[in-house]
């Protein structure tokens, strides 16, 4: 009995985390190049709606995902053009877009509310899915979960092992210096903001076409965009740690649902809401560890130091500042 429920628990954590991982990775790329795309909460919702609408009308999941990625990229490009090229406050543009996209999603998506549409089914990978415990957890998942897992490694590799990734990080740290070395910082920023936006769009569709299938009001993913933003900070702008943050949040969500069954006397809302303050608490802890006083204490414990060093992340220095050549 306990073995069985553990399998379900871990399998659900993986599935719940997948879209969050994709969105947070998209935002990681964007912020690594020095741009804050604050539109992702609304952007994900609009992409979820468009993804559902397109695949409902066309019957094709691929078209649905493609349309969602396009929506995410277009919104990100708006942030990019206004923030990078016109020098508006990126945070303000992103925030306005998040509100607009949310309303737009509910308004345009109204005719598609509560319809039965196409959805991604779990893919059983032959042989591997027969491994006890690991099989059902890892190898009986919708395609998007595999995509999310592959993306973690792929983005890490791109950022830290390729020349292009090095240029991306360089622009996010010091666009002026990048410019003196023949890199056009603004073009890089726009490019990676668009790619990050496409991933955010993909994450939206991953909900409406797979993890929380269908479209409705509320969709049940409101606020997850903000969580993805927090996870990027939690993960210290490092793709692997960001993914771990997404797993942590998904775990908190799933465990809440599980506990709800065990303690029916506790109001359901407590379990629904608990992951959010817990995530904030985790953020505070990570932040506290970087304080000078704590640092001194940490230095006295070499074992701890290694672990805590891993938790620390520094934001890209040029984050949110637009660069203008003379």
């Amino acid at each position, binding site marked *: 009995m306990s073995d069985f429920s553990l399998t379900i628990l871990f399998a659900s954590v993986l599935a719940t985390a997948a879209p969050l991982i994709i969105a947070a990775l998209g935002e990681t790329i964007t912020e690594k190049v020095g741009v804050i795309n604050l539109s992702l909460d609304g952007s994900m919702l609009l992409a979820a709606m468009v993804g559902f609408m397109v695949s409902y009308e066309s019957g094709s999941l691929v078209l649905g995902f493609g349309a969602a990625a396009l929506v995410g990229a277009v919104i990100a490009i708006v942030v990019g053009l206004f923030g990078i090229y016109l020098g508006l406050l990126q945070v303000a543009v992103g925030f306005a877009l998040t509100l607009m996209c949310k309303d737009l999603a509910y308004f345009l998506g109204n005719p598609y509310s509560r319809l039965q549409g196409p959805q991604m089914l779990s893919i059983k990978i032959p042989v591997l899915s027969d491994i006890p415990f690991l099989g059902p957890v890892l190898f009986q998942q919708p395609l998007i979960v595999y995509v999310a897992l592959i993306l973690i490694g792929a983005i890490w590799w791109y950022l830290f092992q390729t020349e292009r990734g*090095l240029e991306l*990080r*360089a622009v996010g740290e*010091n666009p002026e210096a*990048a410019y*003196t*070395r*023949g890199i056009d910082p603004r073009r890089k920023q726009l490019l990676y903001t668009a790619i990050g936006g496409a991933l955010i769009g993909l994450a939206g569709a991953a909900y409406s076409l797979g993890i929380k299938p269908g479209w409705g009001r509320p969709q049940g993913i409101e606020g997850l965009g903000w969580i993805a933003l927090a996870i990027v900070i939690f993960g210290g702008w490092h793709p692997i740690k960001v993914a771990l943050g997404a797993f942590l949040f998904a775990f908190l969500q799933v465990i809440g649902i599980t506990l709800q069954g065990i303690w029916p006397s506790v109001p359901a809302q407590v379990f629904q809401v608990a992951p959010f303050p817990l995530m904030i608490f985790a953020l505070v802890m990570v932040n506290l560890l970087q304080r000078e006083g704590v640092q001194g204490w940490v230095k006295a414990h070499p074992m701890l130091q290694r672990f805590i060093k891993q938790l620390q992340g520094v934001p890209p*220095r040029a984050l949110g500042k637009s660069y203008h050549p003379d």
Partner: protein
Amino acid sequence: MQVEFQQVHKQFGTVQALRGIDMRVEGGTIHGLVGENGAGKSTLMKILTGYLTKSSGRILLDGVEVDCSDPQVAAGHGIGMLYQEPQDFPPLNVLENFIVGRDCDHDLNRTEQRERLTQLADKVHFTLHPNDVLEKLTVGERQQLEFLRLLGREARVLILDEPTTGISDQQKMLLFQALRQIRDEGCTIILVSHKLDEVEALCDRVTILRHGQVTGEASAPFKVSELLEMMFDKPPSVDVVDHHYHPGGELLRFKGVTAAGERVGLHDCSVSIRQGDVVGLAGLSGSGQGLFLRLAAGLATRREGMLEFVGQSMDKLNHKAFRQQGGVFLPSDRLRQGLIPGFTIRDHFALAAGLSSAAAQQAAEQAIAQFHIRGTPETLAESLSGGNQQRLQLALIPKSARMVLLESPTRGLDVESAHKIWRFLRGDFADQGAIVFSSPELDEILEVANRVLVFFEGRVVRDLLADELDYEHIAAAMTGK
């Protein structure tokens, strides 16, 4: 490679930064480009590297006109620059910093790049570890890395902008050695500096700039006095103010003060300022004068030493105590640190003295009349001209002030406004208290101060009284001679 500028102009808005520069640098030489801050040295060099675009004029490399409209193009011509502020990426490691950029040879893989870095470092006797994160390196080491990077992509013209600021003596020796070495291999080097001892030690020829124009050229061996004359404006012929000096009791005391900030910091500074002092802080801008004033005003933190104001020790950061004891500090950035944009003249009085609206109106009207401020009590601070802003700041000084600290008080003001300000300051405060001011204009210091502290690289290198003030002597001390 020979580099030639013909009639190069550069305008920033209404400001003429360069007014027709003609200059030729022969291939395989070290050419010095000297001048005061703001003379246009860095601007000229940034035009050569494509970081800035010229307004008009021509640039020729080996006699052929080239277009250096962006850094990538200039790098293609073999032009590389070591900027004054290291243009690098601190969170990345040494090797990554070496590689990143479009101007790097991307045919090599990481291992080969690492070998290339080590090879180049060995050649010029630098010690750098490819895996160290840049943040842990000193400014000198970061500069060494940048230097190697430029060597690595075979720069044929290397520009160095004040390369010895903030680096150790040993690093300086290594750098000079490396520069001579690559010059002998045929590289053309342009050294931008205002430190004449370095120019003397390294350069084959120098060009002197002042106010965006070439004022002279010279070949080694150089006569320092001639260079100084071309660098600075002519000493004033008549003294405007009588330099009588009758110091009273001690007001402010620095004892062995060391602090970090403003790049060079302040080192082991011991100075006593007495009633009746009008102290001019001379020095090239950014040599520690600003930090000195901020420390005195309780706006900066010192690392070591004692600081006393009117006999009381000043704790780390205590601007409030400083003001309560009769101190005033007027920063050079009037609109950002001194006044409040969006506030009217009346608002400023209401805020400064905690006055009611009617009382503030009266105070403002009085001040406008007394200080000849062109405006009404309802005029916003930002719509006043620079001179009027400064007069407003002066009007806001409480009558009880005993110590007035001013940072470049006449910056951007015309001669007439500057005179008015000094007449007021000397008349009102010089006797009852002390004035300490910094100024980039040595002439101004000589005109109004009865005592001069000369700053060089964060140290007070001279403390001179009125009868010892000599233009050439101070100018030489300012440039480290």
